[in-house]
């Protein structure tokens, strides 16, 4: 029996504790110095800070880098530039998330989702009025749009993958092209056709405009999801003597059930925040009723948009709160889609 003692695994290539500590200390020093400079020179605002920190950082690195070879200096410089640019790229989203949360949470009270604006003016205190009408309006229009586009989109996907008939190229081409329709153009189309026929804005009009934007997304995602089903599955079912419709309905579709739901969810997430088309087709309102064919209807994006246009302090607050609700909805949809998308993995 050999008596070999196994040594501890080490990672000599990793940065040592002392070096990490030193970096942290110099970062803190840079922060302090920037603070001092900002105080003394009146370099204002967050961007003033950021510029200060950057410049000092660069100075410190140049000092540290005078011992390095040309290649290493190039490498370190590039690392700094890339990190700085990446921070710059991510900063707006953090700012958006932060602002929406910070400014929106102020108005997020119970009355925001339980009452509407029939009896209150946007300028009133935030404990009055709410966005119930907008939320219900959005729900109504999105539901109608989903009821129309989900079946159509899934059928299109099934046509493209299972039947592959004579129109395959045409269907795929048109679906692909129409996913690039600017949202305002979709709204304009409905405005000039449906709305003129029915004399004015309505929930149906809005739903149709949203549907135009949803359909390509649902169709494309359905097709992609269906394509992932291995052909062996279909072959096995057909070899057992099942007809094509049985194969599709009982073998293929159940396999991608969560994928198709994801297609629907992604479609909804795409249109729930759309403003421009609703501007043209659904108008806005301060109350809500269930009849989708009669009259203008509020929606969450239009609510936010309208409040913003009014521009007084309380109105803008309401806008931020509406934006917060909208964002939470979109994120909830996306997380659900992600979770469901994972379920299909075999």
């Amino acid at each position, binding site marked *: 029996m050999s008596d070999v003692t196994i040594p501890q695994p080490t990672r000599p290539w990793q940065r040592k504790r002392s070096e990490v500590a030193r970096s942290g200390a110099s970062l803190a020093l840079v922060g302090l110095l920037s603070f001092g400079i900002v105080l003394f020179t009146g370099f204002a605002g967050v961007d003033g800070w950021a510029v200060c920190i950057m410049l000092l950082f660069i100075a410190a690195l140049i000092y540290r880098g005078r011992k390095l070879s040309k*290649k290493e200096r190039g490498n370190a410089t590039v690392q700094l530039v890339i990190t700085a*640019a990446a921070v710059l790229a*991510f900063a707006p989203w953090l*700012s958006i998330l932060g602002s929406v949360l910070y400014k929106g949470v102020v108005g997020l009270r119970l009355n925001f989702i339980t009452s509407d604006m029939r009896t209150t003016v946007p300028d009133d205190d935030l404990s009055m009025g709410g966005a119930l009408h907008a939320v219900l309006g959005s729900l109504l229009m999105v539901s109608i749009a989903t009821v129309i586009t989900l079946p159509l989109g899934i059928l299109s996907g099934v046509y493209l993958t299972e039947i592959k008939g004579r129109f395959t190229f045409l269907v795929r081409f048109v679906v692909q092209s129409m996913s*690039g329709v600017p*949202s305002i153009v979709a709204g*304009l*189309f409905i405005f000039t056709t449906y709305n003129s026929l029915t004399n004015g804005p309505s929930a149906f009009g809005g739903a149709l405009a949203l549907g135009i934007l949803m359909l390509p997304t649902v169709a494309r995602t359905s097709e992609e999801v269906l394509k992932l089903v291995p052909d062996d599955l279909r072959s096995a079912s057909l070899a057992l003597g099942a007809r094509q*419709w049985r194969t599709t309905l009982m073998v293929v579709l159940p396999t991608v059930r969560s994928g198709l739901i994801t297609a629907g969810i992604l479609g909804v997430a795409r249109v729930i925040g759309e403003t421009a088309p609703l501007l043209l087709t659904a108008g806005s309102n301060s109350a809500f009723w269930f009849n989708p064919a009669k009259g203008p209807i509020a929606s969450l994006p239009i609510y936010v948009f309208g409040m*913003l246009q009014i521009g007084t302090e309380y109105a803008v607050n309401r806008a931020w709160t509406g934006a917060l609700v909208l964002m939470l909805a979109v994120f909830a949809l996306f997380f659900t889609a992600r979770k469901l998308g994972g379920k299909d993995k075999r």
Partner: protein
Amino acid sequence: MNIVAPVKREMHVVHSRGDKVFRGIVTAGALTSLIILGLIGSFLFARGAQVFSQYGLKFITGTNWSSSLDEGIASEFGMGPMLVGTIIVSTIALLFAVPMSIAGALYIEFYAAGRVRRILSGLLDLAAAIPSLIFGLWGIQVFTNFGQNWAEFLATRLGWFPLFNTISDNYGRSPFVAGCVLASMVVPITTSVAREVYSRTPRELIDTCYALGGSKWGAIKTVVLPFGKSGVVGGAMLGLGRALGETVAVYLVLNLNFRYTFRILESEGGNVASLIATRFGESTSEELTALVAAGFVLFLLTLSVNMVASTIVTRTTRK
């Protein structure tokens, strides 16, 4: 012995009743989608053709957009400034967005440690999901304060450069600021595509760079960037497509003015989508047709950009 060449037999597919019904329903569904979407395209085209035959090329190049209710004065519809405005704002957006996207993608893929990378990936996906409206809201309420300081800086220090020349002191609602807001909308898309492409760089090529004694930047410069070139271009064009069609964010941030201007720091500008959004309400039927035609032009623009983009992207991600 005579060898007779075999005769091919026809293999008929005879569908059962059930299958025929099934195929009928599915085809009907697909055709309905086709018809609906095709209707829109052809409607836009028809209106567009109508307006073009009436106004000719002046529709695109003309500078005056005025609708007239009087019988005596003719209406004039020229979308030139709006088209140019769309292109200007989108170009500014791309100029900022593409370098930041490349840097962001490189950072996530090659420089970020495990946990940081996961957080940033999640953030990237979330950012792509944020509706344009919220970008516009943030743009006008939060960002403009910064943006106008930068615009002021550019105007006062670099004002000799013709693009940065300004007449007034008002920088807040300029194409420059709008372009910055659009850039932050474009970055998530372009960064995702760029990152996808960079992650497909063959590992052996990167290892070889290190084995030859190169640094991380050496490996990126030698292998990753050339490999990902076309993919990044595709991603940039996808982002451009989004920027061109953007309505609400630009509408909220930009001070709309319907004339040609290249002064990107000045508080005026426009784009086609905002044109439609502002004018549809009180338009005559004549103006409405012109608006539809303008929408058609915009649609063609975004369509061609998107088509080019998706061919490039599918080609590079299929490697």
